[in-house]
Every structure is written in structure tokens, then in C-alpha cells.
């Protein structure tokens, strides 16, 4: 396989889907870093394991599988948000617990379906369908070639919705991230924004699962924004820089994966490594600049 193949009809759709999702993640990552939601993102991504297990248990495939994972992520996000708003439990404690609980449920459900196959009620529940064995390495690290051509439209649509939502609620979200309590006094509907952000993050995570996997998607949800914030102190510039950095990582990783070693390298890890290097570079740039002033 050569670089030329990477832009051929089989590979262009996943690349386009990846670029669209990367843009959405990069925009969200600025909010995630500023509002300090990175750990919540971790919690929601790990909830995805629970969703994968649930989908396998219910023998759900295709869209139904995606929906099961999405609902599991949303459910976890809501529980995190509700616990975070109460004064009884510290939010990082709540996330730490839900994270492992969701993973446990996921693996457990995935294992149980094998042993339940003989049970009458289980066959009734799944209507006799059997989901293929769960490929945990794909769940963990993703495989961009799993993106179906219909996923491209979903990815582009989802990215457009995220970008549009951020644009329409720009002033509210920025105030919310800057100082949540004060923004509430000034008439910002903070509860609505909080849940809206969590829903967008959960939806993006499900779509990115095939792209980067549940662990590596956190790279796209944190690194572009974190690096861009080191590059500029103007919010508009930060948002643009974040998208550019994300796309450099995505496209660069894609080309390297298919061009360097005959297409034998996985895309996800290379994307993440490029993003990490870009982050290191922006730290150096930031240091150099502040040393000069």
C-alpha cells in the first residue's frame, strides 16, 4: 500500500470522517481544558466500555450498538453531573468510582452472554441473535478503517452540530467556563450548558470510538485545546489553532500510518503521538516567548 492508496476511494471516506470529528473534538477540547472537564471526559470514555458490554449482551449491532454505547455514556455523564452538583461526594471521587464500575459492568456483561446462551429468557431477550465476539483491542485503540461510508455523513453532521452549538452559545459557554457561579447570577443558564456539554462530549466519544478507540479519544479531547492555549491568549486564535493542531495530528498520523511501513501501522497511536509532540512543541514555544518578554 502506498500514500496514493491512502487517498483512494476506500480510504478517503474514513479520512474525511476523521477530519470532521477531529475538528469537533478540537473545538470542544478548548472548552474542556478551560472548564477543567478533562477528568469528566475520562469518566465518560470509560463508560463506553460498559456500553460496549451492554451492546454485546443485547446482541445489538450497527446503529443499535452505537446507540447502546451512547446511552450508557450519557447515563454515566448525567450521574457524574448530578453527583458533582451535590455537596456530599467530591466529583473526582465520583468519577473514579463510576469509571471502574462501568468498565466492570462492560466486561461482566460481555462474558455473561456466552454462559447465558443456553437460557430460555436470554434467547428471548436477544431474539436468538448472537453478537460477534467483542474485539477489545479495536475498542481500546480504534481502527479508522472500521468507519463505514455512512459514518462519514454522521461524523460531518455531528461536527457541524457541535460547531454550530458552540457558535450559537459562544458568549454563554465562555462566561460559564470563566466563572460558573458568577455567570449564573448574570443570567446564564448554567445547568443547561453543563448537560449540553456533557451530551456533546458523550456523542463525540461514541463516534470517535472507531477512529481512535475509547482510551485514545481523550487525546483529541484534551491535547489540541491545551496546546493551543499555550500558543495564544486570544480566544478566537486559540480556537483556530486548536483545530489546526488537531488536523495536523489526524492527517499526519493517517499519512504516516499508511505511508511509512506499507500500511502496517495502526492510525490511532500515531495520531496520539503526533499530538503529544505538538503539545511538547507548544510548551517550548510558550517558554521561549515568555523568556523574551
Amino acid at each position: 500500500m502506498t500514500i496514493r492508496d491512502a487517498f483512494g476511494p476506500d480510504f478517503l471516506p474514513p479520512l474525511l470522517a476523521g477530519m470532521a470529528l477531529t475538528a469537533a473534538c478540537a473545538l470542544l477540547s478548548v472548552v474542556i481544558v478551560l472548564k477543567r472537564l478533562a477528568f469528566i471526559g475520562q469518566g465518560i470514555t470509560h463508560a463506553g466500555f460498559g456500553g460496549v458490554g451492554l451492546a454485546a449482551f443485547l446482541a445489538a449491532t450497527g446503529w443499535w450498538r452505537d446507540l447502546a454505547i451512547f446511552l450508557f455514556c450519557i447515563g454515566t455523564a448525567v450521574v457524574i453531573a448530578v453527583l458533582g452538583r451535590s455537596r456530599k461526594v467530591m466529583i473526582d471521587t465520583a468519577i473514579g468510582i463510576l469509571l471502574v464500575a462501568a468498565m466492570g459492568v462492560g466486561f461482566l456483561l460481555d462474558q455473561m452472554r456466552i454462559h447465558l446462551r443456553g437460557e430460555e429468557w436470554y434467547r428471548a431477550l436477544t431474539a436468538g441473535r448472537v453478537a460477534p465476539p467483542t474485539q477489545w483491542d479495536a475498542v481500546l485503540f480504534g481502527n479508522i478503517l472500521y468507519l463505514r461510508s455512512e459514518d462519514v455523513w454522521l461524523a460531518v453532521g455531528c461536527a457541524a452540530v457541535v460547531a454550530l452549538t458552540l457558535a450559537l452559545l459562544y458568549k454563554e459557554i465562555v462566561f460559564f467556563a470563566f466563572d460558573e457561579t458568577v455567570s449564573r447570577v448574570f443570567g446564564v443558564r448554567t445547568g443547561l450548558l453543563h448537560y449540553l456539554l456533557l451530551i456533546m462530549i458523550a456523542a463525540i466519544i461514541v463516534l470517535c470510538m472507531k477512529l481512535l478507540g475509547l482510551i485514545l479519544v481523550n487525546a483529541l479531547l484534551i491535547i489540541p485545546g491545551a496546546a493551543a492555549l499555550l500558543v495564544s491568549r486570544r480566544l478566537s486564535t486559540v480556537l483556530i489553532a486548536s483545530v489546526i493542531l488537531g488536523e495536523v495530528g489526524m492527517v499526519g498520523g493517517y499519512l504516516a500510518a499508511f505511508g511509512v511501513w506499507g500500511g502496517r501501522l495502526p492510525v490511532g497511536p500515531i495520531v496520539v503521538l503526533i499530538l503529544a509532540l505538538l503539545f511538547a512543541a507548544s510548551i517550548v514555544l510558550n517558554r521561549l516567548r515568555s523568556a523574551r518578554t
Partner: protein
Amino acid sequence: MAEKHCCQQDHHSELAQHHSGDAVCVDHVSFSYVPGVRILESVTMHIPRGTRLGIVGPNGGGKSTLLKLILGLLRPGEGRISVFGRTPHQACAASMIGYVPQRHDVEIAFPLSVAQVVRQGIVGRTGMFRRAGADDRRAAAEALEQVGIADLAAKPVGDLSGGQQQRVFLARALAARPRLLVLDEPLVGIDEVGQAKFARLMDAVHRTYELTVLIVSHDLRAIVAGCDQVACLNRRLHFHDAPAGLTREVLAEVFNHNLAGVALQGEGP
């Protein structure tokens, strides 16, 4: 029913009595975070329009809790609070309250300019999904002018000194064209020159914007500098009247000794 009850039976402050023109009515409000431990106990207080009221009290005396109740960030366990005849929540939604939070160190990296922070003040007035109109943008520009930092408008807010950041937050509150201005510990971390400047600024602001002002502080200097009335809060409201005749020295002494139990006027030692 509120009319008959004074915050202190033997002290008939006119401010404890309800009038229809009140900016803020706090009516027998009690609040506890933990069941059984009351932070506020039957607090009744009425702030007439145009007044500048200072609330002092020791740390843990319930000042910031009362503030959060008036701002609608908490709901009272018992009693009722209204701001210009509305619930605190409604008053906030209608941009009637301008809030200057306690100055905490602004995240240096937060990529916002001074002008952008001040324009946050008009977010509620503009409404969701809309761009700010010319009128609102002008209000923000005027507020920036009023607090004397128009020349810093383009600077990142993290680059400013504490006193300058305080002014930015004051401008943000004024940009909302509020009717009630609430300041939480405005002088913390500001030197004496800055404090005097701030007092003059608050005077000018009060005149220009025809505001009712509520200042909460554990520092009596902040209150004396710019208030017509003083209330002392330590779980209950202990004193609530004009600080006429009270010198800075007297208040400072009272504060050092026993703020909570002392009535300053009329029945003082």
C-alpha cells in the same frame, strides 16, 4: 406579618420594617447546610431603594450565605427573599442584579481581554442565540469608561493587577445596567491607596447609576468608606442602622473586640 418583627426586639430600626419601595426584602430567613446547624437564624432585613448597606461580621457568621441567598444561588430553608418584588432567580434572569465577586486570582492563561470580560455583563440582557445589540455594547463601553480602565480594554485580563481586576469586575457588573449592585469583600488584597481610590469610585458609581448597593465584608473599612447603613451578621442580625456618628476608630475597635454581641448605637456601652 413582617412589619411587627424587628431583627432585634429592643432596637426599632426603621430598616427592619417593610416598605413597598424596598430593593431587597429578607423576611425571617433561616438557612442550614447541615440539618440542625443553622448558619442563619430568622434574619429579617429590608434595604430601601438607593441605600448603600454594608454587612459586616466574623468569618463563618453567615455573610456569604446571606449573599448567595440574595443572589439566588441558594434557596432559604425558611422565610422569603425578594429583590424588587421578584424572586432572586427572576431578578437575576432580568439582569437586575450586578454582582462583583470576591476577587480570586484570575486564571492567568484564560484567553480573554478586559473588554471581553466586561461584555460578559450583558450576556443575560442580550439573551441566548443572539448577538449583543448596539445599545448593550455601548453600556459595556460606558462601564469600562466609568471605572477608569478604558485604556486597558485590549489587555489580557490575567495581566492586570488585583486592583485593576477588581475594576474590571465592577465594570462587568455595571454593564448589565443593574438596579442592585452586590459586592463581596471588595477590598481584600488591595492596598490603602487602592482602597481610597475604590471608595471614591464607588461614590461616583452610586451617583451615576442610581443604584442600591450591598457590600459584604469582614473589613469595616470597606463598609465605612462607602455605606449609609451597617448591619452586623453573626447567625442573627445584630445591628442594622445608619452609622451616623460612628467614626472609623470606634468601628475598628468594636470589630476587634466583640462584633457579634455589641449593639453600636442607642444602647451601646
